[in-house]
């Protein structure tokens, strides 16, 4: 199947205020494609959770979004510390975020489960000390 559109975003890991800029831009782009509002909402939330995770846990990263007639594919790649126990990280309420992150409104351990809930398919590849790659697919 031919790819119709690709977007590439660099996510700055040093600026918490800018976290979400990529997701905001993606949401604008998806709106212009006239996709169903619920599809846009699901993709936006999944992307935003992933973007925030890269900022607070991995020192930033990159996002690639590929859109075909059938699906939105979001690939998040970072060179952060990696996730030591993925099944634990997928549990609601599990978080290693420090206290200062909680005072910024995050770190409840809800992000990864939420990303799974809002995508039709999600895979996590992670290596300790190397980084993490998360691929999410949302059917259109």
């Amino acid at each position, binding site marked *: 199947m031919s790819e119709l559109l690709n977007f590439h975003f660099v996510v700055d890991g040093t600026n*918490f*205020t800018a*976290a*979400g800029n990529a*997701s*905001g831009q993606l*949401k604008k782009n998806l709106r212009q494609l006239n996709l169903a*509002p619920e599809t846009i*909402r699901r993709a*936006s*939330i999944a992307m*935003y*959770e992933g973007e*925030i995770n890269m900022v607070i846990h991995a020192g930033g990263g990159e996002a690639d979004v590929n859109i075909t007639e059938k699906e939105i594919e979001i690939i998040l790649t970072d060179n952060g510390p990696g996730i030591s126990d993925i099944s634990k990280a997928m549990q*609601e309420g599990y978080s290693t975020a420090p206290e200062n992150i*909680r005072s*910024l*409104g*995050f*770190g*409840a*351990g*809800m*992000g990864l*489960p*939420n990303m799974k809930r809002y995508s039709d398919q999600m895979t996590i590849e992670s290596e300790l000390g190397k980084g993490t790659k998360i691929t999410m697919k949302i059917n259109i």
Partner: protein
Amino acid sequence: MKVTEIAEILNAQIVCETESDSLEVDSAFASDMMSDVLAYVNDRSVLLTGLLNVQAIRTAEMMDMPCVVLVRGKTPTGEMIELAKERGIVLITTELRMYEACGRLFAKGLPARRDSK
């Protein structure tokens, strides 16, 4: 419930408006944790929060929430106002604390969820 009605009930000040003053919400959600907003809200809700950073507006934008209420008399940052304007989100501030703000809206019939009237 109309956003203008919410502002009235909360004695609130509208920091940033949108074109349509007929903007309506179905329900309300209150939290300082954006993680929880992202995980729990699934309809057109107003967000009541004491969180004073731009992620409160970002979260509303991602969730398609049309209005954010800052409680406890918080003054929004320039970045919050800018983003709210840009994305057409109504931003209002009230002197009320979280408990009273929620209580007033609930008493006037704004439910926690659209279908739980």
